[in-house]
């Protein structure tokens, strides 16, 4: 298995699923255009009481949390030198790179004055948690692109073949790739560590964001350890989201998932989830906020779903041998963790937020949902495109099927 190297997957791109996803993405893009023509107010249900909606909760906070696979696998494989897990590193890196780009893009269309998106670089406010998140994400996105460069080099080195009049530039590009490879191979470790440090910083600061909302936040979620909880849940979702992606990728290309790696990765999950759950429950007990659980209103029910279905059940599942050995159960368990963390972000930014003069609740509009879901669909399409262009995944051919052909196959 160690001998296998990632290769671009050669497979049919437009499967029925891809066509459906592309249509959903297109619908989102149409609403995105409408947002720029008519403004944020026209296509969202945001108002003076609820200034932040699902774009912030799902596409930014949720997207960044689910892109945590990038830094957790980098920490495991590069910082702790557990090369055994190398097959999950590149897919996680690609997912993080696209995920963070999308989160940054979500900021771009959510803010009222999108053309001022560069302002935080010039106008600093170190007191602001949002400023820290913004700067950290900007730097980390750059680090992710740099970490991706060796894959670009591997793909194109010696193969640069521009058509027509650009032919003369082939040599130049080859030389550039060479220089890049030489400099990067010596300095890459700097970026690996920087990526992990930057991630811990902004993953936690995303939690600090809502601390300043004070009593506008429901006490079940409002806590001074919110940044710690955000960091722990991001680390906790890191490996499950990578397993989730691996299992979907393998299934979609009719290949065999690498259960040996997944099993070991899965056995790393329970300790992290346990620490997260312990802090979450400990926080309830210490602040005495568990009394709100008996309210049986939307907040308490959502909190229970988040904790039980999103953390406790998958924690128990990952402890079971038979779950770790079954691709299906492993898929269910990791999906639950992904769901739990996504729901936590949704709860923290939407369900918990109830300002003093609120009239009613916030529901996302059709346009908001279209853009939000459209971007998730576009993420899947781009991820698939990425692994078909670049050497990202290492797939084992499924003995029962002949659908997968790497590189020189005769795929339809």
């Amino acid at each position: 298995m160690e001998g296998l190297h990632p290769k671009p997957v050669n497979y049919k791109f437009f499967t029925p699923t891809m066509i459906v996803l592309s249509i959903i993405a297109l619908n989102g893009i149409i609403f995105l255009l409408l947002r720029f023509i008519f403004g944020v107010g026209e296509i969202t249900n945001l108002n003076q009481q609820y200034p932040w909606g699902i774009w912030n909760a799902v596409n930014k906070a949720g997207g960044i949390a689910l892109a945590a696979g990038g830094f957790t696998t980098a920490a495991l494989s590069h910082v702790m030198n557990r090369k055994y897990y190398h097959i999950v590193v590149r897919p996680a890196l690609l997912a993080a790179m696209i995920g963070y780009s999308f989160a940054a893009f979500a900021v771009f269309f959510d803010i009222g004055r999108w053309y001022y998106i560069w302002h935080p670089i010039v106008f600093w406010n170190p007191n602001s948690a949002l400023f820290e998140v913004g700067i950290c994400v900007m730097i980390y996105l750059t680090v992710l692109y740099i970490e991706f460069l060796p894959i670009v080099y591997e793909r194109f080195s010696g193969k640069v073949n521009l058509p027509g009049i650009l032919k003369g530039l082939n040599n130049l590009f080859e030389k550039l790739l060479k220089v890049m490879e030489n400099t990067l191979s010596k300095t890459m470790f700097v970026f690996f560590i920087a990526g992990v440090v930057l991630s811990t910083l902004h993953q936690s600061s995303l939690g600090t964001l809502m601390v300043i909302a004070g009593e506008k936040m429901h006490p079940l979620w409002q806590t001074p350890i919110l940044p710690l909880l955000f960091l722990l849940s991001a680390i906790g979702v890191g490996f499950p989201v990578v397993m989730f992606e691996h299992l979907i990728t393998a299934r979609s290309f009719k290949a065999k998932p690498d259960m040996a790696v997944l099993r070991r990765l899965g056995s790393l999950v329970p300790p992290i989830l346990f620490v997260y759950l312990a802090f979450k429950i400990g926080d309830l007990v210490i602040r005495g906020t568990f009394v709100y659980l008996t309210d049986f209103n939307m907040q308490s029910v959502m909190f229970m779903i988040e904790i039980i279905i999103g953390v406790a059940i998958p924690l128990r599942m990952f402890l079971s041998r038979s779950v770790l050995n079954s691709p299906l159960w492993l898929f269910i368990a990791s999906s639950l963790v992904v769901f739990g963390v996504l729901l936590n972000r949704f709860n923290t930014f939407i369900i918990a937020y109830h300002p003093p003069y609120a009239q009613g609740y916030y529901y996302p509009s059709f346009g908001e949902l279209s853009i939000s879901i459209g971007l998730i669909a576009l993420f899947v399409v781009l991820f698939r495109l990425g692994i078909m262009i670049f050497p990202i995944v290492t797939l084992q051919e499924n003995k029962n099927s002949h659908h997968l052909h790497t590189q020189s196959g005769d795929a339809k």
Partner: protein
Amino acid sequence: MKNSTRRDFFKSAAIIGAVTAGAAATAKASPENILSDDRKGVLVDTTVCIGCRHCEWACKTAHNLPVGDLADYQNRDVFKEKRRPDTNVLTVVNEYSNTKKELLPIDVKFQCMHCDHPACVSACIVAAFTKLENGTVVWDGDKCIGCRYCMIACPFQIPTFEYKEALSPDIMKCDLCIARTQGGLLPACVEICPMEVMTYGPRSEVIKLARERISLYPEKYKNYIYGEKEVGGTSWVYIAKKDMPELGMPKLKHATAPGVSESIQHGIFSYFVPPIALYSLLGGMMWLTKKRQEMD
């Protein structure tokens, strides 16, 4: 990775250390929250207010907002619902029933409170909000990116966003008529009020005045000055017959609104020590595990 030597490692680590130390030095230079002893405040005596809403009219006129006819403001039907400041109404008067004297309802004016430790100033990603020396909290449209984090942060739910503006939406809130006060004039609402509900002056003086009134007419007022201590103190302070939370004001603690958030932020970034320490720790870990692997 394979070619990297120990020397390379330390060289790069040193460069990164130097860069972050430089950044730390500039970050420290960010402005402190100025709280001048002469900062101005406004005392609102809700027991005098008759709900004529002249202040709303004057406010709109002073800020070039669509204003309408002053005579229309006599219409008391607007009191049927509790209104909030919005993008084209920076101050509103709401009416609350007086259980003891049905015919004398209590009218309360709402606007930005101009906190002494404003959450918006602390939260804003680009420092578009400033607490000026005279106590006014102002917004700078040349910096604002329209992220609406100030609206999340404000404990009084005051800043509003021009959602209908496609190209250049503004954050709208009371600016305590900074353009007028800098020219020696009174804020428009204070100046027009026929009942002299509001008293504009040094904050310490208006609080003294509030205390005098309460002690002179103890039967007329609840012995409490709302805004003196709330979220660390606000420029606007209120005295009333009832508790202000019964009259539409939020019930707030005395700790400043941005306090917890800022101490977390400053804890994580105190002179960049924690990030640099984490970086060194991970670097050490990387070097050790690599060495161990090479020995195997």
